[in-house]
């Protein structure tokens, strides 16, 4: 059962990767990387259950946090061109 | 998170939490909307409704993606809430249900992008708006 779910994760990860490589604009790619992160969070949790070691869930939590921060940082850079904030 | 609760580990956790709070306080990151306590009693009810709505619109989005009759549309709706927190909750709820995304917010007007006219009608019927307004309560 877990293996079937992992296979589904793998297939969708492949499709999302295709979007990263094909993507026309940067927004497509950012979106696809974010989705890949979500799929991998699910994959880590599933693999933890599959290998009977649910401690891996800690990593999944860290992953979810980092994924969010990374995406927002990329978009922030994209909007302003630097990390210096919006002081005028 | 490791299932070990010795005094040392708990103590270190408390100390680091306090230090983080002190740093955040020093950097003036905490504003008056940090913890919207007045939400909580009605929040659970709303969350259940939102969850049901998310699942329904998930199936609808899946149907649209498979059948391929995509007619995207973009329109503006008015948010009738008074506080910023409630408005943000409304915008986030619109974004959270697949099929509709809030693209811009200006004061109390939201610009929404919908995958299909069905999703658009759902938002324009203002059902969610009323629910969030109920959540906000009388003020």
């Amino acid at each position, binding site marked *: 059962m877990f293996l079937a779910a992992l296979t589904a994760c793998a297939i969708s990860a492949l499709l999302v990767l295709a979007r990263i490589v094909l993507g026309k604009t940067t927004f497509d790619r950012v979106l696809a990387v974010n989705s890949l992160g979500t799929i991998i969070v699910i994959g880590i*949790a599933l693999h933890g259950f599959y290998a009977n070691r649910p401690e891996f869930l800690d990593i999944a939590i860290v992953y979810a946090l980092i994924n969010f921060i990374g995406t927002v940082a990329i978009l922030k850079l994209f909007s302003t061109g630097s990390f210096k904030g919006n002081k005028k | 998170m490791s299932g070990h609760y010795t005094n040392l580990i708990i103590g270190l956790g408390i100390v680091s939490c306090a230090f983080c709070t002190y740093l955040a306080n020093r950097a003036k990151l905490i504003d008056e909307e940090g913890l919207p306590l007045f939400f909580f009693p009605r929040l659970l009810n709303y969350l259940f409704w939102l969850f049901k709505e998310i699942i329904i619109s998930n199936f609808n989005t899946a149907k649209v993606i498979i059948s*391929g009759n995509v007619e995207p549309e973009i329109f503006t709706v008015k948010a009738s809430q008074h506080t910023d927190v409630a408005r943000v909750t409304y915008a986030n709820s619109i974004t959270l249900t697949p*099929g509709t995304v809030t693209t811009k917010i200006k004061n109390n007007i939201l610009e929404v992008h919908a995958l299909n006219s069905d999703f658009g009608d759902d938002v324009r019927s203002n059902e969610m708006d009323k629910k969030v307004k109920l959540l906000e309560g009388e003020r």
Partner: protein
Amino acid sequence: MDLFTDLLTGLFFFLGSLSIIIGACGLIKLPDVFSRIHAAGMIDTGGTAFFVLGMIMQSGWSLITVKLLLIGIFIFFTSPVTSHVTANLAREKGMVPEGKKIGKLL
């Protein structure tokens, strides 16, 4: 009872797999950024919700359940933020979505 939880887990996993695969297909198939955000939102909400529910069914009541709920809640709160930020930036960079427009745009 054991069989029942297993069946329920299988159902949830099936639905979750379906929603992430359809979401990924949508990410490939849909025409422009604004439509693709919906597909990504499907992966974020439907996929994680069903998978987390299924895994909670398997774990029973323990520390693992709390961690799973944390993951679920966290993705639940961050997904709309990333979607909105992406859409907002795409709009501000001057991209106009395909399809019809109703009313005056901001």
